[in-house]
């Protein structure tokens, strides 16, 4: 319990930084919705003359393009990017910082098992991520309600926002695994940013051309807002991959951390 509390207070400042960044981005971008919907309204007439193949290639969905949820789906990509960086950084630092800051021997000589250490750190990280998501979710609902002129489904908005948590879990678990596999990592930031941006770029490239094979490769594309809005559910294959990966990576991290040599001062 001490470790849990200590981790929470250690991350408190950066947690609030990240939450305000995410909320800030969404306020900034959602505030453009009124102009956007005016522009898009005129454009829809033109779009309806286009062949279906072109629309599909561009990832344009006629039903959602002008709605507030459709717009939310577009900007949500950037929220996911920010959230993924937060989660990946959390994952890579939370275990490795003890070695880097030379506090590992202090912590590991305390009468606690390594399992207990990993568990309380994981729990603290999960709490941080959950707090992020709860606050962001509330903010997103509020902002959307403010900018939307017509009624929208709150349930769908929540369903469309929940993937932030899933994607964060994926990147958190990945970060954790990276940090135990590669214990000599001096700086976590380049690695974390590099990994997150690599996946983001794969997703962005796939989006401009509408390629389905690339989707499996990047968590950013697992939860497609327009699919969620249409079916009010997630694609089970991708949900399954998410759960499987998170469990696998976390379990592996536990096992490796139990056996690893921890470098002391």
């Amino acid at each position, binding site marked *: 319990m001490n470790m849990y509390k200590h981790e929470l207070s250690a991350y408190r400042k950066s947690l609030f930084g990240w939450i305000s960044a995410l909320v800030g981005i969404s306020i900034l971008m959602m505030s453009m919705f009124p102009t956007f919907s005016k522009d898009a309204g005129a454009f829809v007439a033109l779009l309806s003359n286009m062949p279906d193949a072109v629309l599909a290639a561009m990832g344009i969905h006629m039903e959602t393009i002008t709605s507030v949820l459709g717009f939310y789906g577009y900007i949500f990509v950037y929220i996911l990017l920010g959230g993924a960086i937060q989660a990946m950084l959390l994952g890579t630092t939370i275990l490795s910082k003890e070695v880097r800051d030379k506090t590992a021997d202090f912590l590991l000589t305390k009468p606690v098992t390594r399992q207990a250490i990993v568990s309380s750190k994981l729990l603290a990280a999960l709490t941080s991520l959950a707090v992020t998501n709860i606050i962001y979710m509330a903010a997103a609902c509020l902002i959307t309600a403010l900018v939307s002129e017509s009624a929208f489904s709150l349930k769908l908005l929540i369903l469309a926002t929940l993937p932030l948590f899933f994607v964060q879990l994926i990147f958190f678990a990945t970060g954790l695994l990276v940090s135990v596999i590669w214990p000599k990592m001096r700086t976590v930031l380049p690695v974390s940013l590099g990994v997150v941006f690599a996946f983001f770029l794969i997703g962005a*490239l796939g989006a401009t051309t509408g390629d389905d094979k690339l989707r499996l490769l990047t968590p950013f594309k697992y939860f497609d807002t327009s699919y969620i809005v249409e079916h009010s559910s997630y694609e089970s294959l991708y949900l399954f991959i998410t759960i499987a990966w998170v469990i696998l990576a976390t379990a592996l991290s536990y096992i490796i951390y139990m056996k690893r040599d921890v470098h002391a001062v």
Partner: protein
Amino acid sequence: MNIFWREMKAQRKSLIIWCVGMVFLLIAGMSKYATLSVPGESQTLNELMADMPKSLQAIFGVGSLDLSTVSGYYGVLFLYIAMMATIHAGMLGATIIAKEERDKTAEFLLVKPITRSMMLTSKLAAALVGVVILNGVTSIGSLMAVQSYSNGENVNQDIMLLMGGLFILQLLFMLLGSAVASLLKLPKRAAGLTSGLLLLTFFISVVIDISGNLDALKFLTPFKYFDAKTVLEAGSLSMGYMLLSLALMVLALVGTYVGYNKRDLKV
């Protein structure tokens, strides 16, 4: 000179990874062009894009670049290339200075018979070489990747122009990173703050794209200084923004030297 070679060796591995990543991005990105450039379809796509309102174009990440020509497509890719290269440069600039304090080797280094300015110069020179190498690899990779899809279109000049812009951006972020590491007393936070700055300016540029009427804010974000679209249309880099970048660079450089020389180091 010893410090310079030491730093070159220290950044070798990560530089190789960055170069490989960059080449991969170029190949993956350009191979997508092959699927886009099917005659007929790309024409419809282009017409569609031309009629699109600015905010929608931004959401699809293309701006009003001509997707049917290879240089237009490369312009779309350029934003991502710039993002990668500036992340590398910013973090390199910040960590190369901050790491001595972070790894508790500052005491060791600074009791050697060198001045702090000499140390900074060697380190910045090493970072500069790293940035130049990444830019070189990106340029060569771009030329080769684009050439193979160009169908006789002459693209070399456009690409070299964009690479010139990229180099200025890299230098700018590298020096901003070193200034952050030197001026603030937060060696552990330097790289984080620099990348925060970078992400912030990136988001500002996205917001400018989407809103379509915030052009006045362009000077706030270096990502807009050498926007692929304007560069390709004008055929040259904007003089005003070049001067602005230069001024910012000088400011950051002065900040680095003055800040680091005056500061109490964390030992």
